[in-house]
């Protein structure tokens, strides 16, 4: 009853959306077909021009390529050249009230990549960067995929069920297989739902991202090769991070109704003013955007000859969305070539991988709820955890269980299930409880004294002014 639909020599595939999910799907489809020895045409439709600086040429995100993803991509032969990596990240600094703790991984290497998705911030006269998305698109093109720089307006089926696309007045197709990789764009989603024959419901939330101009020296001096994560800065702000990139700092806020007010409160908080340069003009912020974050996909995002991938399909909760796009794009390509492109084939193979990520998101929810509900509210527990992490930094890498759990939570490097397992190791919980009790009486753990960093900066500035008399 369930007939498979196979891709063969001369089959045509259309991919709508040239973000990471679209590019990875094209890349692996072409690579696997090449290995097997079948010739399949792959067309990628992408509406954006990634050489334009600012929001118009960018798929907005924090821009962290996780440690595990950098390694997986490299072993696939997909490397991130220096021009794409704006900064290598080596450590995480957690800020909570007066407390700061630095977490470094066991391997002393700047393995996490901070990237721009497009050509970088919209700053007059600023340099144009090489973004991740155009880099991946180029790799897909090099594998033989064809990029069509057009927006797809209408998706339809012909009488035999094959797919027809329309960009403006121009028609494309028929295609044997259609991949939906348009992210969370509502208009594109509506076209796909029509073609799937059922709605695809997502749970989403809005985030706020903007780029703060610091200058390269100040980035070096104040942010170093660290990503800065903020816990419980004020009510309503769920998560905040500052990520160094070139001469900018990317500020990423998730919470209830993120907007200018939230951003101003955040920038004026003691945690942030302590971290950033004292002479910083925070209104020198350039480039702001309010992207949607996919929290949950509720249905099976496929039908015969059509499948959604990346943010428009299933993704990972909060962290490593690009990594999820890579894993599921590859799984989709493998399913399409080796099994087929019918709903039945996706049920049996692609959906299983999607489910793995969805299930793991369940564990992720436990971690984040614990963080939201308990750890952030109860300050002795929070400081207890920070204290445990701080004490662990003296131990050999493999023994830093709580630190590794925090590292993996914030970097998105490991499945959430593994993180929970690590937190629940015997000894770890009891140490946290002990340190929480200590925190009732002792002052919160403090990091390196930021005053000295500031004084060194002012001395540096003074010297520079002396050497350039006006």
């Amino acid at each position, binding site marked *: 009853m369930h007939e498979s639909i196979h891709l063969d020599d001369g089959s045509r595939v259309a991919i709508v959306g040239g973000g990471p999910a679209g590019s990875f799907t094209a890349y692996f489809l072409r690579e696997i077909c090449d290995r097997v020895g079948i010739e399949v045409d792959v067309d990628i439709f992408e509406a954006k021009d990634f050489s334009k600086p600012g929001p118009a040429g960018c798929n907005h995100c924090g821009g962290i390529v996780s440690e595990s993803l950098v390694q997986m991509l490299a072993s696939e032969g997909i*490397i991130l050249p220096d021009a794409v990596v704006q900064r290598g990240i080596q450590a995480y600094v957690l800020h909570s009230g007066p407390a700061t703790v630095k977490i470094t991984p066991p391997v002393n290497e700047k393995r996490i990549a901070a990237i721009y998705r497009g050509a970088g911030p919209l700053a007059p006269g600023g340099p144009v960067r090489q973004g991740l998305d155009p880099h991946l698109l180029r790799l897909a093109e090099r594998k033989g995929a064809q990029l069509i720089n057009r927006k797809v307006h209408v998706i339809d089926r012909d009488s035999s069920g094959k797919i027809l696309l329309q960009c403006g007045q121009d028609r494309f197709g028929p295609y044997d297989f259609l991949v939906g990789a348009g992210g969370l764009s509502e208009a594109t989603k509506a076209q796909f739902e029509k073609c799937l024959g059922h709605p695809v419901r997502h749970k989403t939330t809005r985030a706020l991202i903007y780029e703060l101009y610091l200058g390269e020296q100040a980035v070096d001096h104040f942010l170093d090769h660290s990503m800065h994560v903020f816990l419980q800065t004020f009510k309503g702000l769920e998560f905040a991070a500052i990520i160094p990139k070139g001469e900018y700092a990317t500020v990423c806020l998730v919470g209830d109704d993120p907007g200018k007010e939230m951003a101003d409160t955040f920038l004026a908080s003691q945690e942030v003013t302590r971290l950033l340069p004292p002479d910083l003009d925070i209104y020198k912020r350039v480039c702001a955007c309010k992207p949607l974050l996919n929290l949950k996909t509720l249905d099976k995002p496929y039908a015969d000859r059509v499948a959604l991938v990346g943010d428009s399909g299933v993704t990972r909760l909060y962290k490593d969305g690009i990594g999820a796009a890579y894993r599921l794009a590859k799984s989709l390509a493998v399913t399409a070539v080796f099994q087929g492109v019918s709903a039945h084939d996706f049920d049996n193979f692609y959906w299983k991988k999607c489910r793995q990520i969805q299930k793991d998101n369940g564990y992720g929810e436990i971690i984040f709820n614990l963080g939201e509900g308990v750890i952030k509210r109860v300050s002795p527990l929070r400081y207890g955890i920070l204290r445990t992490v701080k004490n662990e930094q003296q131990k050999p890498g493999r023994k830093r269980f709580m630190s590794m759990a925090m590292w993996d939570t914030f970097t998105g490097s490991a499945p959430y299930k593994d993180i929970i397992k690590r937190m629940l190791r015997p000894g770890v919980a009891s140490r946290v409880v002990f340190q929480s009790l200590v925190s009732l009486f002792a002052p919160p753990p403090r990091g390196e004294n930021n005053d000295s960093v500031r004084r060194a900066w002012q001395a540096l500035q003074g010297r520079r002014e002396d050497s350039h008399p006006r």
Partner: protein
Amino acid sequence: MFIIQDGEVNVFLESANGDIPLVVLGPGDMFGEMSMFTKQPRTATVTAKGNARVLTVDKRGFLRRIHEDPSLAFRILQKLSERITVLNEEMSRLQETLAQYEKQD
């Protein structure tokens, strides 16, 4: 295992008669991949040629991912196959040279 992200490295053998250069590797190339599968000590020495950015791939994490997605091992198999082809050619060349020497004797 190590993978070059940017720049180039020299691979050579250290011997009593000085270093014997083997190959120059560039972006995307890997080395030390044999250590993923054997416990033998490293067989060659690698130094950066100018500035190079080299990524360490964690053995345990990588082997685990190979279990989830065996096709990840494909590129390593491909590299090793290529290397065997080169070695075979080298060997037949050496055998020819040896045969010529023997004829001369």
